[in-house]
């Protein structure tokens, strides 16, 4: 964690790297892709484990149900595509083939959010987290950087049951140092503070850190939490943060409907009511542009988080 942005590997690259390591450790790991392996980075697994990689062609529904069949025979399938196609095209297959029988299928959607940039709205998953969270029994992960992705991919493989993980296209700012401990369902506090808490995930963790740095210059002490697991959400850290700081802002690269903010709000409203503010994409599809341009237009910036912080502090 640093106030200054230091870029590391994209989370999709970290996923590819972790998948290869998993393949070496566990022969039950198989991988499927739908003609996007070079982009999702499952190609790295394909190169090393030709017999355990299945390119299913541009047919995501069949890919998901085939993975369910493989899982019912003890394989651990990692299924990759763009998050938009993996989640939005195959929702019924996820529901009936995977979630209903609670099969051990790992779905990894790359190019999540609007940071895919120039390709435009058709390729941008802004609903994927909401869809994944709505599926009974699913674990939903949004890692922020290389180290957390590597750790969470391995934890996902150990977890028995369906997992959805979102990865991103651009290089991700480094949040974590070697040796950090990760656990599914337990958030990481990346910066301590007592005045207000920002709960973020994915690329928004760095924006939150930079917002905290800016606030610090004005005497506002901001706690930043990386909620890499949206489901099951870490209720303890939310309640504890609400009690300690008395106000919460969430920040996510996703629609405000059904994502991280909604999940946090559910806990806060029931267990520890405090003022909340929400940063995310507000009921719209984005457009083509560079990730920076899009983050500015749709308010996914440190500056906008600072504005939300100021707003919730007034309501505290």
């Amino acid at each position, binding site marked *: 964690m640093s106030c200054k942005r230091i870029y590391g590997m994209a989370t999709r690259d970290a996923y590819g790297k972790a998948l290869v390591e998993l393949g070496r450790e566990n022969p039950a790991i*198989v991988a499927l892709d739908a003609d996007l392996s070079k982009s999702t980075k499952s190609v790295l697994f394909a190169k090393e484990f030709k*017999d*355990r990689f*299945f390119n*299913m*062609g541009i*047919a995501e*529904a*069949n890919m*998901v*149900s*085939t*993975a*369910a*069949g*493989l*899982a*019912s*025979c*003890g*394989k651990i*399938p990692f299924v990759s595509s763009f998050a938009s196609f993996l989640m939005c095209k195959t929702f*019924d*297959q996820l*529901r*009936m*083939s995977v979630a*209903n*029988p*609670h099969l051990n299928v790992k779905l990894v959607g790359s190019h999540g959010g609007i940071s895919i940039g120039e390709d435009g709205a058709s390729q941008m998953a802004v609903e994927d987290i909401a869809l994944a969270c709505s599926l009974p029994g699913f674990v939903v992960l949004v890692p922020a950087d290389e180290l957390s992705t590597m750790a969470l991919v391995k934890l996902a493989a150990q977890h028995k049951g369906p997992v959805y993980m979102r990865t991103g296209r651009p290089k991700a700012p480094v949040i974590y140092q070697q040796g950090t401990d990760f656990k599914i369902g337990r958030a990481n506090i990346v910066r301590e503070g007592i005045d207000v808490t920002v709960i973020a995930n994915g690329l928004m963790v760095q924006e939150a850190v930079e917002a905290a740095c800016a606030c610090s210059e004005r005497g506002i002490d901001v706690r930043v939490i990386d909620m890499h697991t949206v489901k099951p959400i870490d209720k303890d850290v939310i309640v504890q943060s609400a009690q300690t700081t008395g106000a919460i802002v969430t920040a996510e690269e996703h629609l405000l409907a059904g994502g991280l903010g909604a999940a946090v709000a559910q806990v806060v409203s029931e267990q520890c009511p405090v003022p909340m503010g929400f940063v995310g994409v507000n009921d719209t599809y984005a457009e083509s542009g560079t990730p920076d341009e899009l983050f500015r237009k749709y308010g996914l910036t440190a500056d906008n988080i600072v504005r939300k912080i100021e707003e919730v502090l007034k309501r505290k």
Partner: protein
Amino acid sequence: MDINQLTKTAQAIRRDIIKMTTEVNSGHPGGSLSATDIITVLYFMAMRHDPKNAGWPDRDRFILSKGHAAPALYSALARSGYFPVEQLLTLRKFGSPLQGHPEMGKLPGVEASTGSLGQGLSIASGIALAGKLDNKDYRTYVMIGDGESEEGQIWEAAMSSAYYRLDNLTAFIDYNSIQLDGWIRDIMELEPIVDKWKSFGWHVIDIDGHNFNQIIKAIDEAKATNGKPTVIVARTIKGKGVSFMENNVEFHGMAATRDQMAIALRELGE
């Protein structure tokens, strides 16, 4: 089991289907009756399975992709010894493992959750693929509805199963020619179905789906086919065995009344 015994078992399953659906006044008797003879051959002759050890890794698998024919599957499972036959009358009732459509994990012997049409062939294909990966010799069977064949995912799975040369996979099309809204040919024509599957790289066998000799011979032929999956296009009759249900679209998703049940059971040899 010989043909005579298969016939008797199929009639018993048909009686179960009528009793189960009338008891709860809900369910799909028509498509269950058309599927019965094939399911009977699979569970009582063709498949290697152990009702006392439902999770045996080397078992042959059967996926009922047309999940609404669940009564036929449940009856075959009960009569094979997976659970007591008396439990069949709990079909669709609150608290019963016999859900309206099959759900994996709820009832021993159910290999996939089906009922949202189009997914079973893909799941079966994944199971067959796992068998190839593990060098196991189990076989995977799947039954697809004719109306269900309108789902695009069926053809995605047809493509990938042939591409991965899954000769341990056998699909049945229960071709009873009627779907919920009427005759298939009036809704979405499937023909030429044999040419379609051939062009997707499958070995295709066209049979009378109520002729035990033909069903048995087709399964043997599928087992002997190397390098490609086999599809058995089984020409069947919706509501087969009950005069007033045969070819009657009304009984796609409607149970017989108590009075109709009495007639049906008499016709089915009770």
